[in-house]
């Protein structure tokens, strides 16, 4: 490392702290807002420090408040969102790891055709094909079901590709050693491949959990009934800037509830997450 002057180091820290302020401010301010009374929020500017309503707002919101404005209990919203995020993450990982396993380790006719069929889906996010996919959902009667929320989002190739790349780095000798050791295809998958993929699975889990949690367009379309809303959708329905009746202090609590779980996942699983992100995209 080349030495650098203390002044430059100081500037570096200053810029970083400024960056953190910009990055963290909207979230922090949401938290601040969630601890003030409605009256304080409606009369800008809002103080920079948390107010004394933390307990009141949160208990009001959690025990009926959100249900009153949103029409659904907050528990139901969080449950829906969690089911969706977990469903997308787990579902995607399961089917991708199996597909990648088949593509990499087995030779069967049309193997490459199947690979390309899956590969092309990589290019088309759900946003691009909303209308036709929606029609299919209606035809299959999957509107307002968890399956409808989750399954269409599972069909994407990113995770399959990641696992494929990883599997291809596994030396052929290891596969052969397992064969000589008497491990059949399933044994090999569970004894060798799965344990070796642990890091990749963890990383993907974080990324996909976030992906599932933050979905917007799809749940908006597939759920008509309020009972099936995710918390993000519910929040959107609560907010109305034209409407003076919006109970901002409760909305802010809801916002915090929608933000905190995924942030916790990202921060707590940071190591996996960063690795997975940088590796999966490159």
């Amino acid at each position, binding site marked *: 490392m080349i030495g650098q002057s203390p002044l430059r180091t100081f500037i570096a820290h200053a810029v970083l702290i400024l960056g953190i302020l910009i990055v963290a401010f909207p979230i922090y301010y949401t938290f601040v807002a969630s601890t003030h009374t409605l009256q304080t929020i409606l009369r800008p500017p809002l103080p920079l420090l948390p107010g004394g309503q933390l307990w009141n707002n949160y208990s009001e919101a959690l025990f009926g408040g959100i249900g009153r404005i949103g029409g659904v209990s907050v528990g139901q919203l969080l449950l829906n969102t969690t089911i969706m995020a977990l469903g997308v993450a787990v579902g995607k990982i399961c089917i991708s790891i199996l597909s990648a396993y088949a593509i990499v380790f087995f030779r069967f006719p049309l193997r490459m055709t199947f690979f390309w069929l899956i590969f092309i889906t990589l290019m088309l996010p759900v946003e691009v094909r909303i209308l036709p996919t929606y029609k299919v959902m209606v035809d299959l009667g999957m509107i307002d079901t968890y399956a409808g929320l989750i399954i269409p989002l599972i069909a994407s190739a990113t995770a399959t590709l990641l696992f494929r790349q990883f599997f291809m780095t596994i030396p052929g000798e290891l596969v*052969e050693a397992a064969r*000589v050791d*008497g491990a059949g295809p399933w044994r090999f998958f569970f004894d060798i491949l799965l344990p070796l993929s642990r890091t990749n699975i963890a990383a993907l889990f974080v990324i996909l959990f976030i992906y599932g949690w933050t979905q917007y367009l799809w749940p908006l379309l597939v759920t008509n009934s309020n009972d099936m809303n995710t918390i993000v959708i519910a929040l959107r329905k609560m907010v109305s800037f034209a409407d003076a009746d919006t109970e901002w202090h409760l909305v802010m609590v809801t916002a915090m509830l929608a933000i905190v779980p995924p942030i916790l996942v990202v921060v707590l699983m940071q190591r996996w997450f960063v690795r997975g992100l940088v590796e999966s995209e490159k």
Partner: protein
Amino acid sequence: MATVDLRDVKKVYPSGVEAVKGVSIAIPDKELCVLVGPSGCGKSTLLRMIAGLETISAGTVAIDGKVVNAIGPTERDIAMVFQNYALYPHMKVYDNMAYGLRNRGTPKDEIDSRVRSTAKVLELSALLDRRPRELSGGQRQRVAMGRAIVRNPKIFLFDEPLSNLDAKLRGQMRVEIKNLQRTLGVTSVYVTHDQLEAMTLADILVVMNAGLVEQTGAPLDVYEKPASTFVASFIGAPPMNLLALTGSSSGPMLADGTAIGFAAPETQAVTLGFRPEDADVTFNAEALPGALVLPATVEAVEPVGAESFLHCAAAGSRIIVRVSGRATAKPGDQLRVVAKAERLHWFDQAGKRVD
């Protein structure tokens, strides 16, 4: 315990490439057979066909007299040591060694006693709780061996197991493998491209080239009577000196016109060879009947310690002569290289030995 019989074995890949073009080898019980040859000669493919990792395009592989062409690697009761060891990175040494036994449903306490006794033999007892990445190259090599031994298979297969070790360790492990194989008495097939390894380890040496067997035999027999120019130049370091001959009315001549002074054993001989240690140099000009005498210029001297190698230009090509101890010759010296007639090797147009 087990014999291995290869009969006219061929391997043709779907791309049409013929990797092994018909090989027959018979390995008696308890013997160690080394397949040696340059890369791409088909030796690894052959080994993998014995292992059951490659399908056999034609011919038969028999273990203990039973043809195993259609049997998978698990049922052949073989164990294999791979070039890169292929240890399971997420398993401890113990589990690496136990894995094959577990898959075969061996009782737990028997696995334990076998793993521990094998570990003792290989001096791995202290390492059983480590993972492969915490081991040195030599230790990994031992674990790979242990994984093979613990299974107590009919046959050991080694695929260049020492090529990732440094020279000193390689020498040590070579001796160890030989001793283990002899003590355990397990029939083994060993693939290497290192002729020194092949010479020192083999009971039966099989020299391969371009998908075919060039020569099979005891190592020293192969060394002393190479069946072809290929074997002559592949086995032995430095390799045998080979000189082209042209026929003339007065007997064979070297390419540059030097008469060799005596008759070749066969008139079709077109190549003459002698090993570096079968020649000597002299500064005198006396006549030496019954020997090949080549005027030569020393180009370089390589002192190795106990011996020295003189690289000389003679008869239009480069030859190497081994002299023991310090060499008195210096680069630029003019001298004569002398090889006794009975130590000469002769080869015909196709490169085959003629006697």
